[in-house]
């Protein structure tokens, strides 16, 4: 290894001027006075600063209740079937045909009346069934809309909390990096200071008469 230094050897071998010695000694006295009164123990927060407050999301409100399930509409009343729609008053043909028709109607009256009555009630029943189904479907939709809406709001709240968590995590990691850097810097600065003090001490020891 061939290293050409300039300065250090000369520096070491050069007789220090009186002025420089006097200045160096004066500076040394100032440093030592500071060191003697320095409060080496420092509070962590004086060095590191206050830790940033942790942002916490408010407690999520419970998902809204889907509400009471509406009672199903009453079932169609079968008794009404018996309240027959009377069509027997319908007018028939006139003359001989009418006479014959009236005879036949009179003869067939029980069967015709029953059929007409049944038909009427069947129509009524059909209408009531349709109304029942409409009402039932509407109630079901209302119930599930409420359930899905509630969970949708709940998921939105979860997303919001995840976002806060992510931002907090990033902020704290960066804060942690700064703190680690600060701790490393403090130790490195301490090392440099101690090395400087040791070198100074060594130089002064060498100057003492043996």
């Amino acid at each position, binding site marked *: *290894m061939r*290293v050409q230094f*300039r300065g250090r050897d000369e520096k070491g071998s050069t007789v220090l001027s009186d*002025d420089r010695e006097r200045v160096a000694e004066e500076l040394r006295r100032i440093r030592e*006075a500071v060191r003697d009164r320095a409060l080496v123990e420092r509070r962590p927060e004086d060095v590191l600063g206050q830790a940033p407050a942790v942002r916490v999301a408010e407690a999520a409100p419970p998902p809204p209740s889907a509400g009471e399930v509406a009672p199903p509409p009453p079932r169609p009343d079968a008794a009404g079937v018996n309240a027959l729609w009377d069509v027997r008053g319908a007018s028939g043909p006139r003359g001989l045909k009418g006479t014959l028709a009236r005879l036949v109607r009179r003869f067939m009256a029980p069967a015709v009346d029953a059929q007409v009555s049944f038909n009427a009630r069947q129509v009524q029943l059909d209408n009531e069934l349709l109304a029942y189904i409409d009402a039932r479907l509407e109630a079901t939709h209302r119930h599930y809309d409420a359930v899905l809406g509630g969970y949708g709001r709940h998921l939105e709240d979860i997303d919001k909390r995840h976002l806060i968590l992510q931002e907090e995590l990033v902020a704290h990691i960066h804060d942690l990096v700064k703190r680690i850097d600060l701790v490393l*810097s403090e130790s*490195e600065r301490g090392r440099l200071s101690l090395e400087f003090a040791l070198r100074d001490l060594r130089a002064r020891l060498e100057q003492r008469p043996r």
Partner: protein
Amino acid sequence: MKLAVWSPLPPSPSGIADYVAEQLGPLSRRCDVRVVVEDPAAVAPAAAHGLPLVRADDPGEADLDLYHLGNSASHAYVYRAALARPGVAVLHDYSLHHLVLGETVERGDRTGYLDEMRRAHGEAGTFVGRQVARALGGDLLPALFPLNDRVLDSCLAVVGLTRYVVSRAAVRLRERPVLHLPHHVALPLHPVPSRDEARRALGLPAHALILTAPGLATASKRLDVALRVAGRLAARHHSLRFVVAGDRDARLPLVEWARAAGLGGGLVVTGRLGLDDFVRHLAAADVIVALRFPTHGEISGALVRALGVGRPALVTAGTPSADEFPEGCVIPVTPGVTEEAELEAILSRLLADEALRETIGRLARAHVTAHHDLASTVARLASFLEEVRGGKDALVAEVERRRASEGSLLGYLRDEVRWAARDLGLADTPPEIETVLAGLLRGTP
């Protein structure tokens, strides 16, 4: 000797550009110099001293390449060339971490960065590299992991401006030459203006006490601490001004710091200065505040100029800025827990004692005049380059031997073993290790 000097030149914002521009004139009287820059048209005409400027993509042949490497993106092309064409590396910073980071992660090549960290710093490098690549590395770790391995392996010789750089490079280079070249002092104003003249020219109050922090204000310059101390001292010295003579990192809340310190209007931030006004600010100062932590092994050109002007300068103890000068010529402030109290005590003493300030300034000027003179440092550099050129063939052969297995499995194994050796405290692995590793790869002992 045909010498190709690779470096950005003014108006590049790199301080190294000014350093090289100052050196070119005297160097060209000893060597046949041409300067390799990225864009010759962008160079300020006066900076090149009439020397030929050539583009980095067509540098031509030279007897020797001189690479000025700093830890910033403006030196990326120099870094790439230094790896491709072995030459003499002038390490202005020991750590090239930010430069390599810019060449890899910031270009989307995260793997390349992790490979470099692994190669240079082993397992710890891999661990730290992952943090840094995610922008979670903080400010200190890049300074502790210099990432200059590839350059040190590729260069024929190293020139360091500080003992910090030279002592570390010498351990790595073993048989290759290393030169310690003190940072030269160059002052563009002849004669240097007196304090009163400089203040008049700059419009600064004639009777104020002025603390000046020269150069680009960055987080590493401890200005938060300095402003707190200045704020407390201003209570006793009402005329106190704190001048930041240079540009500033936009992320630094200088005004808020000054306000919180009670300094308020006592803070002056000049913005980027031309060299003449920069030197006037140094001359106008009563005390120079040139603290720095962490260090990348660099020495501040602004500090050397301030000492040349004859102003007392506060530097951080244990860093190259303190180690390059005897105590009494600079004023070291220990950077540990007592830093702020020590800074206050020393500044308090200096501000109260003009004679002491003048004495330290005189000592500083005498020292840099004797040891940092431009002509003699350039002469020393030129002699060193001649010496390297004389042994160039052997040095190139040594570099080629070291790089022969790069990119192969054998090279990978060698890198791993080399790191293990360093981890054990060895400087390097012996050359025969490659034979052993090659045998292992062939399946023979």
